């Protein structure tokens, strides 16, 4: 028995590999889960885009459930996402903070005037240092932050109405019920 069974080994090995390959077809090898989930938002202090004299800091995010959206005017899919964000800010009472990443100040302000401003406040990250602390690797990215200032979820890539409905809102509701 042992003699003929051993000839099955290559077939079984291949079967295993094929299963992984099949699974792999539905995964994105480039999506990197954030190790910051469950960790507090890193300390930061950045100028406000609309009022460079004032600062946006970590403290601003405390005490309520909020979104932190990383965007830039050079980012094509941010343009696609922007309308969704404007709608979201209008229909829901959840504050959305912006992090304008490595951008041109005047251009960014013009963009918000032209396309609408969904943000409670936009932190202007000229050199991208805070983005690194947040583990940002591409725009847009959206963080969900709870009342204690802990990062609970991150979405890489543009938000869509469906994504908001299926992923964001249930999580936000849950976080709202937490102490």
């Amino acid at each position: 028995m042992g003699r003929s069974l051993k000839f099955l080994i290559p077939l079984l090995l291949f079967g295993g590999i094929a299963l992984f390959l099949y699974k792999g077809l539905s995964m994105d090898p480039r999506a990197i889960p954030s190790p910051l989930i469950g960790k507090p938002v890193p300390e930061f202090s950045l100028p406000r885009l609309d009022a460079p004299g004032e600062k946006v800091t970590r403290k601003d995010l405390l005490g309520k459930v909020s979104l932190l959206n990383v965007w830039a005017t050079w980012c094509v899919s941010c343009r696609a996402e922007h309308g969704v964000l404007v709608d979201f800010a209008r229909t829901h009472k959840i504050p959305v903070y912006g992090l304008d990443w490595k951008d041109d100040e005047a251009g960014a302000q013009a963009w918000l005037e032209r396309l609408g401003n969904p943000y409670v406040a936009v932190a202007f990250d000229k050199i991208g240092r805070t983005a690194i602390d947040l583990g940002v690797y591409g725009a847009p990215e959206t963080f969900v932050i709870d009342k204690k200032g802990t990062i609970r979820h991150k979405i890489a890539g543009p938000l869509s109405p469906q994504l908001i409905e299926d992923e964001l809102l249930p999580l936000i509701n849950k976080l709202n019920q937490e102490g």
Partner: protein
Amino acid sequence: MSKQFASLVFLWLIATALPVAAYTLADFPFDDPKKEQEFRELTGKLRCLVCQNESLAASDADLAEDLRREVYDMMKAGRSKEEIIKFLVQRYGDFVLYDPPLKPSTYLIWFGPGVLLLIGAFVVIRTLKQKKSAREKTLSAEEQQRVEALLNTASETQGTDK
């Protein structure tokens, strides 16, 4: 979001959005050549996150330039290699490391090959032992004759071949 859409988005990002930065390491001078070598080796072993498959040292992506700058500043400030790696892993996860660290979750990567090697060695030894003790029970006399004939004629035509 479908994967296809996601990759489309990323292609967009890479193709059109990220400004191309200087990608030599010329902007990161060190007084000590040893440090410079260390910097080169370290950034060579860190993975650029937005690129297809390139190291921080070799990538011309904007984010790679930012991270090189970050690594450079940390080295200049006298931080150790371990601290720098820890800094990046805290933000981007183990994905940034081309050289996976040894820890329980990577035991499979680091010890799997040893196991494979042991299996290989086992197979060799077993086969050799079998071969030594085996009688040619599977080859009939007639077949044996044919093989011999074949080999003989073969060696006649080709001369001796060591």
